[in-house]
């Protein structure tokens, strides 16, 4: 099989159907090979563009590997304390009700340190969109157990695998938020296959539309690969996600105020 020249665009008639990335990404992110977080970032920013929100959006970014996205996102951003993004987003949205406000948080950030913040913000019905990058570990600190680590998963602080007796059970935060009055839209996606990437992008779009419609807090939980924190190779990431995480965290729309109203 001959190898095609992929150094330059095709010379014949052709239509560009996918860019390297949106212009809202200013450069390289520096995350690990095979990490799912940059994929989530890309579809998030593409959505803002498609919804024409680029010049009326404020992002609030927590602490985790995605924290370094602040350096490459061409969006107004508050980099906030670990776990507190929903509270900060509340203050922002209340003072700038005409903007679209989102948080970008990991499972450690949202389901460990800031569990209270997101549930309270949901109950208050704050019109903000929370994007959760759930990889079931603290990636940034090297792969320790979080509140969403699935049973059996080995981490640096559950060396024999997470055991319910010793380490407790994982929390399905999207289900909790969906059950709270004040939530507008809650869904769970993943980025382990092209199909899920596309679907998840739709979920994100729905969430922002829900925010713009003033339905209350919207949350999109995105399962992302963390080969480094899972101690698997990068190519094995998507399958590991599929086999271990989606069983514990089924994908789909969990709550939609507008859909339920119809």
């Amino acid at each position, binding site marked *: 099989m001959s190898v095609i020249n992929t150094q330059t665009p095709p010379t014949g008639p052709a239509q560009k159907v996918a860019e390297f990335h949106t212009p809202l990404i*200013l450069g390289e992110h520096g995350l690990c090979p095979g990490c799912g977080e940059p994929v989530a970032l890309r579809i998030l920013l593409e959505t803002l563009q498609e919804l024409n*929100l680029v010049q009326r959006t404020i992002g609030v970014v927590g602490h985790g590997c995605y924290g370094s996205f602040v*350096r490459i996102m061409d969006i107004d951003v508050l980099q906030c304390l670990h776990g*507190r993004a929903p509270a*900060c987003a509340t*203050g922002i949205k209340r003072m700038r009700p005409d903007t679209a406000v989102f948080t970008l948080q990991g499972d450690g950030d949202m389901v460990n340190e800031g569990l*209270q913040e997101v549930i309270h913000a949901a109950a208050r019905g704050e019109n903000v969109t929370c994007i959760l990058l759930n990889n079931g570990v603290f990636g940034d600190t090297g792969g320790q157990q979080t509140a969403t680590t699935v049973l059996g998963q080995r981490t640096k602080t559950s060396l024999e695998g997470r055991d319910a007796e010793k380490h407790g059970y994982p929390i399905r935060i999207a289900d909790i938020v969906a059950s709270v009055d004040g939530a507008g839209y809650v869904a769970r996606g993943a980025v382990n296959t092209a199909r899920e990437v596309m679907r998840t992008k739709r979920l994100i779009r729905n969430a922002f539309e829900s925010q713009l419609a003033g339905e209350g807090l919207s949350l999109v939980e995105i399962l992302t690969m963390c080969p480094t924190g899972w101690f698997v190779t990068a190519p094995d990431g998507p399958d590991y996600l599929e086999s271990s995480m989606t069983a514990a965290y089924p994908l789909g729309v969990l709550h939609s105020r507008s859909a339920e109203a119809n």
Partner: protein
Amino acid sequence: MSATAPVAEMAPLELLEGSTAIARAAILSNCRFFAGYPMSPFTGLLENMAKLMPAAGGVCINAESEIEGVNMVIGAASTGARAATGSCGQGIALMQEAVAEAALNETPLVIFNMARNQQDYFQCTRGGGWGDYRTLTLAPKDVPEAVEHTQLLFHLADKYRAPVILYGDPLIAQTRVGVRLAAPDLEPLAPKDWALDGTMGGTGKSRQVWTWAMGKVTDPGLGPDGHWRAVADKFEMIAAAEQRWESAYADEAETLVIAFGSAAKFTEYVVDELRAEGHSVGWFRPITLWPFPGAALAQATRSSRRVLVYELNAGQMLDDVRQFVHDRDTVRFIGGVSIHESGLSYGPLLDAPVLRDRILAAMAQPTER
């Protein structure tokens, strides 16, 4: 020096509880976001804000905890709004991470520490958050001054892009006094071109509020090393520029009594009485707890033979007095821990007759020089 936020003298005198007066002063200072969690004696301020904010077109949120409250306020302030929170003791302790954050990412906050007593001097002046930051802290001696300080604090927070603290107490929160309220008339400030409004997305110049100040790959910032040094330099600048104090009879008194906040009001009262009786005594009052008016204290104590420190705690301001007093050997502590049996206010040591006795007892002791 006692720089003040000039308040129109012509405003009518109103009998207001401290908490109400402070809330109204804050709103007159254009505070438009407040979030707080009840805790005595801060609760009254929260209740007043909840009542008054809507009519002012602002927002007051029943934050579900102090941590959420202060972080909401960081969010609100990051958009350029004037925003405040408050609590006391344990509640302020819970905010320390966020106060340090605000100092290091340079969001202006006003924090009303309506403390139960004077045991939180270290909490206000040394923070205990993380990193090199300080919090400008004003300690009013009574309600009218609390009004003035409130207005000044919103101004200074914006001027320096830093969190600042009002150190109040139950006497200030709960006493009703005649006060005059008007919008403050303070020097104009630079526009907040750093504030997040969402408009700069996609321009390559989108804004960041970030403790680490890393900037963007296309336009790197100072990063933690450079930025934190710059912030430390800013605090050194504030330390030099914003020391406030007042004192009386320092040059003509053998004994100088140092006190802050409500205790200073008691001190002033008792010293006046003692002077009227012919005693050689004066007083010195730090108005800013940080920056501590060290040079002024050194000057004020140049000829003192006895420096008495009266604070209602185990001796926290002592750390600052000892650093700056002209002669450390002249310092005596005449304060102490004193808690009301309810746990929520001062005990019997904050009282003019007690203070009087302690000063007289100290004056009966031989001096060091």
